[in-house]
């Protein structure tokens, strides 16, 4: 199967029709206030993962706005990245065993990088835990050091968190993705929500032909209402619960269910979940289980745009960017009241929140029988994302955090 064509890297002016000229002007005014300051982003990889994806967009945008921005990565061997992977899991609350030598090796790689890395920024923006100990250089380089935490550290393994915290608190500020993801720190803590790119393959506008082609490809009936959940096959996303809710809805109204997503390569349970989902679905022709490879962004986009109701019945959720993407398509959404979903879905305003399978079924039925109300929710959801969760807002927040490091007041006059 051929890979989907990648959209060419957009310029800021390409976002003008979406967010308006005044928002672009404000970004320029803000960036102008940072002129003369150099920003250096440091993380652990150029390719793969959400952080690299964000930086690949942010760094060109900042430079386009006239803020001299660099992106550097630290070097590490397999042993180092195995340790950081365990750190990652432990910070997410998973029980991991660590030896003292592992902590020492982690610090040793950071120390080596701090000597080899060329530091050029006035603002050093360090992403995630892997390069966190570079802060040891703060007396020698940079004016302001900021740590960007992209993960949920609300319920971490205390041993790992305490180890990390010693370094975090040496920074000038830390940035978290949601209030729930943060831990109490002695330094300034900023809140920057994640974002989606409206011009990416996953979110750009599609023609009717493109949408229909995807529906035809997967044999989906265009006349029957579509209930869709996009997520990897994981117990935490409760795909079985979605099927049960769907069966309840189907008793009174004809509809079809699509469960679309991939399996996580680093999750051995993924295949098991998929097998279980297929068993529960049985031979029901109205349930479509689509195992999609990671590069099927346009297909995911098309399915979301074709859906009548989009569901995200997670048991636990991070920020939930799949919800953001669904809202961006102007679709009514039924989602569990967990994690970052609560920041995006305000019950009966931008979607419907649920706490159980029955609740999800009831909400879906309500939306299917009241298309005007569903449309109103969908429109609100779209506006909500446009206002709060687009990449341009993310860019503005970065600029504001950089600037605010140079001022102490809560009302900063520039």
């Amino acid at each position, binding site marked *: 199967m051929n890979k989907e064509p990648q959209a060419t890297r957009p310029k800021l002016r390409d976002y003008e029709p979406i967010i*308006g*000229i*005044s*928002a672009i*002007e*404000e970004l320029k*005014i*803000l960036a102008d*206030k940072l002129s003369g300051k150099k920003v250096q982003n440091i993380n652990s990889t150029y390719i793969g993962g959400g952080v690299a994806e964000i930086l690949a967009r942010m760094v060109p945008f900042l430079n386009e706005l006239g803020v001299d921005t660099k992106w550097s990565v630290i070097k590490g061997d397999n042993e180092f990245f195995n340790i950081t992977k365990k750190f990652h899991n432990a910070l997410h609350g998973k029980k991991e065993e660590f030896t003292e030598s592992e902590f020492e090796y982690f610090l040793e790689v950071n120390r080596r990088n701090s000597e080899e890395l060329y530091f050029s920024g006035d603002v050093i923006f360090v992403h995630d835990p892997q390069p966190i100990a570079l802060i040891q250089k703060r007396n020698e380089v940079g004016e302001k050091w900021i740590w960007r935490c992209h993960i949920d550290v*609300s319920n971490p393994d205390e041993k790992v968190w305490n180890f990390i915290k010693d370094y975090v608190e040496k920074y000038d500020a830390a940035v*978290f993705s949601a*209030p*729930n993801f*943060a831990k*109490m*720190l002695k330094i*300034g*803590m*900023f*809140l*920057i929500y994640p974002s989606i790119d409206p011009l990416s393959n996953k979110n750009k506008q599609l023609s009717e032909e493109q949408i229909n082609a995807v529906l035809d490809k997967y044999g989906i009936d265009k006349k029957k209402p579509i209930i869709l959940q996009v997520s990897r096959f994981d117990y935490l996303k409760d795909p079985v619960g979605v099927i049960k809710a769907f069966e309840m809805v189907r008793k009174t109204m004809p509809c079809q269910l699509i469960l679309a997503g991939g399996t996580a390569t680093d999750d051995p349970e993924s295949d098991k979940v998929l097998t279980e989902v297929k068993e529960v679905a049985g031979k029901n022709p109205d349930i479509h289980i689509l195992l999609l490879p990671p590069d099927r962004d346009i297909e995911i986009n098309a399915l979301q745009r074709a859906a009548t109701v989009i569901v995200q019945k997670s048991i636990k959720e991070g920020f939930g960017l799949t919800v953001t993407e669904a809202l961006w398509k102007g679709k009514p959404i039924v989602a569990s*009241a*967990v*994690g970052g979903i*609560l920041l995006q879905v*305000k*019950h009966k*305003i931008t979607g419907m929140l649920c706490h159980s399978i029955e609740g999800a079924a009831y909400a879906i039925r309500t939306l299917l029988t009241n298309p005007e109300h569903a449309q109103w929710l969908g429109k*609100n959801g779209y*506006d*909500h994302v446009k*206002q*709060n969760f687009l990449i341009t807002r993310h860019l*503005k*927040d970065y600029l*504001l*955090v950089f*600037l*605010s490091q140079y001022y102490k007041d*809560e*009302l*900063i*006059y*520039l």
Partner: protein
Amino acid sequence: MFDWFEKDWLSVFVPLIVFITFTVLAFWIRFKFSKYINSKLEQIKWAEKDILLSNLTIIVFYWILILGTYTAVEISPIKGSLYIFITRVLLTVFFVSLVYVFYGVITGILNFYSTKIKKPLFTSFQRLKTALTIIFIAIGILILFEIWKFPTTPFILFIILGSAIAVFAFRDNFSNLIAGFEIINSEIIKKGDYIKLETGEEGTVLNVTWRHTEIKGFEEKIILIPNSRFIKVKLEIFRKPPKKAKEPFRFYTRLNTKKLTGLKAKNLMELLKYIKEVPDSVIFYHTHDFIEEYHYLIPQPSNEFALWVGNILGYEALSEKLSTIDIFEFSSIGELRRRIADILEEYINNNPSDNNCREGEEFHFIKSVSVIMPTPYIAHDLREFVQILRFISPNSLFFHIYEAKLRVGKIANDFSLWLSESLAEERLVESITRIDPYMLTIEGVREKIISTVESYLETEGVGE
């Protein structure tokens, strides 16, 4: 050689006599008849008589000579191809001169009137003359073709086709010219007027030409509006120039970032405790964040305390009470904080059982850090003020309306203060100050202020 003359002397002599007679007649008409015509025209005092006389006097002389020559040739023995050639030459000379005279008279009259018309029309008169010249040449050529028996159909087709192409290519110019003529002659739009088109262009009229109208818009921008636009869209004309403000209004914008305080409440008691302790910026954030984040929603929920208490803790009555707090009536965050705390305290006293929320659903206290920056937009008068209001960002409106009063500590919103202090438009100030921004979306506030100022301008006709 003389034999022929002796036999046919009459055939030569008679045409010669005829020609001489016509020549004498021509001289007589030139000197006597023109005087007679002149005296008659003097009586009717027609201003353009000189144009008519200068063109006709000499040409009538030549026409009589041509007629004399033609009559002489007709009665002479000249026949065959020579006869045809001579008559065609005579006809050619006659018609060319006829066209020339018409052209001379018409352009002469045009020249005469062009000295009396307004300057902008002068260029257009010159263009009209050029067009007439082309038309007369075309007519002349057609007559010549007819006389010399050349086929005229291709030429006529060429003219029709050329004219059609010209009309199509310059159709906008034609409509601009027609509209320009109407505007200039009837003085619909004058220099110094303030005009506003339905399509958004507005400004003070600097000049009106045959084709376009030049206006000075916002930020001294010169805009050229094709005249035809005025007959296609709705146009408003304000004769009086707007009153200049003592101090111009500089629009600022404000962008805010969210700072976590690390404080979180899981029940009403904790919520009350922190509401009493947290900085003003936190109270401001939780009572105004919804306006920004959901600025498209009508009606907007009022504050996040009310939402959390209702949606998460399930205290519907308390939520309703908190959401009905009218923020508009408070002049400081301190007063607002006391009101929220009083409501919570009263509820807790009457309902001692206090439930904890589920884990992960705590109320997080967030601080708003605002960066306030000047925009390039400055209003010197009410019209510029409205123009800028139309496109200024929601963030700027938020700063001048919500933040200026409650957070910066001014007695009213920035717009009301400027209207009062720099323009002394007290009736307008009263109307603007009365707008409750908490009952509208930010876009609703924008529309309300614009319509209020515009209707004030219409009814009061504010000008210098």
